[in-house]
């Protein structure tokens, strides 16, 4: 009888943890599943417009667009007012989704394999992957900065291609536009609006 109770107890414990684990997702599994979704979206059976819509949907669910937006704004995020922040958030989201999806839509059936992961701290894990080479281009190393503060909902914050950070490149691009317009954030807003059109 005691043994039966003990076995039931063990069974409940195992199930309990099993259920909990199913809610959190390891960063490397998250990246591989995102990549698989993107690969499916890039299948040649879809038109370019369909591909872009599918990629936008995937990005909205898996990328920390607001976080990247704040990072990209750099020191300027501390100097602009709340109205400007709100305007920036809206513009950045549209800019990001358009830029991200049209960058990826050029590829067809990319083969990306996750090879390793490295936990930087409790908020970040770097996941390393390889984009297989083709006849036209060599193999490419892609690393993913995953924001893991909420382990149940990991989010992508940066792509580092052959050691070059896309978020940092974007940040320096934005900074260049603001600086060459005497620190006027509205110049950046105009450029973003122009791009979104």
């Amino acid at each position, binding site marked *: 009888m005691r043994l039966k109770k003990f076995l039931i107890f063990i069974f409940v414990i195992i199930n309990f943890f099993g259920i909990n684990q199913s809610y959190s997702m390891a960063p490397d599994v998250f990246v591989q599943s995102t990549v698989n979704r993107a690969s499916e979206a890039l299948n040649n059976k879809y038109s370019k417009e369909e591909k872009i819509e599918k990629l936008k949907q995937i990005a909205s669910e898996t990328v920390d667009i607001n976080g990247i937006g704040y990072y990209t704004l*750099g020191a300027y995020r501390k100097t602009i007012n709340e109205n400007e922040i709100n305007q920036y958030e809206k513009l950045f989201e549209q*800019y990001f989704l358009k830029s991200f999806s049209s*960058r990826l839509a050029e590829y067809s059936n990319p083969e990306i394999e996750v090879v390793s992961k490295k936990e930087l701290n409790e*908020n970040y894990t*770097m996941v390393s992957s390889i984009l297989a080479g083709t*006849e036209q281009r060599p193999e490419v190393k892609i690393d993913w900065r995953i924001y893991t503060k909420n382990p149940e909902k990991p989010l992508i914050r940066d792509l580092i291609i052959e050691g070059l950070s896309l978020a940092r490149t974007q940040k320096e691009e934005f*900074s260049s*536009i603001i600086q060459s317009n005497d620190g006027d954030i509205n110049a950046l807003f105009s450029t973003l609006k122009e791009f979104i059109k």
Partner: protein
Amino acid sequence: MNKIIITSLISLMLATNVSAGTDGENKLPKKNSGEVKDCFESVNRATFKFNQVLDGVIFEPVAKGYRKLPSPIRNGTGNVLENLSSLITVPNNILQGEFQKAGINTGRFAINTTVGILGIFDVAKKMNFPEYQKEDYGQTFGAWGIGAGCYLVLPVLGPSTVRDTAGSFVNVLGGDPWYNASANGNNHYLSDSDYMVTKVLSGIDFRAKNIDSIENLEKNSIDFYASVRSLYLQDRQKKIANSNALTDTQNDSDWEEIETQ
């Protein structure tokens, strides 16, 4: 000629009070991790535009044509050019105190030049040699602690810095054995046109391998000039640090204060 190089290198070292690390692990010095100033931005932007026009008229069409060649020909050409670059990499391995890498790269060059028929076949790779990493004099100066100086865009050659441009001059001042043997050599087999052909081919090979990514970047950038500058400087920083570890080349501090969850 050797006197000129030695004098130049010694004066550079004395001027900046640096010493070469000999532990085989050259980390990017802290003072190099700061921003590189674009002191001549308006001139650089004008040169960048000029280079874009030149690229559109000459390099891109040639690179597209080159890409249509059968892949064994392109791979063989790429291998020959990479093998020749070992001649600059090895002295720079030594100057950076990386004697083990210098030995490996010398072995790679010897095997690929002989068994690999002038470098056409990368036999060393098949023999499981470690992954090849190019080195140049600009990287050596950086590893010694010499700052990048201002960012420059050179006509035809593209992005650079004052330090990297100075590094390129070392090649033609005797630092590149291939230049010494061809353009500057007294032999009946090679001439300066051989050197020029390899340099032009290197440019075309690089352009051909990056056609899609450059086109994609240009189309999706809101300031293409700033994007290229950022990517060039990140790439140099990574190469000087001689590290594949992402955390060594990425500044995490700005990410840490952004909380969205």
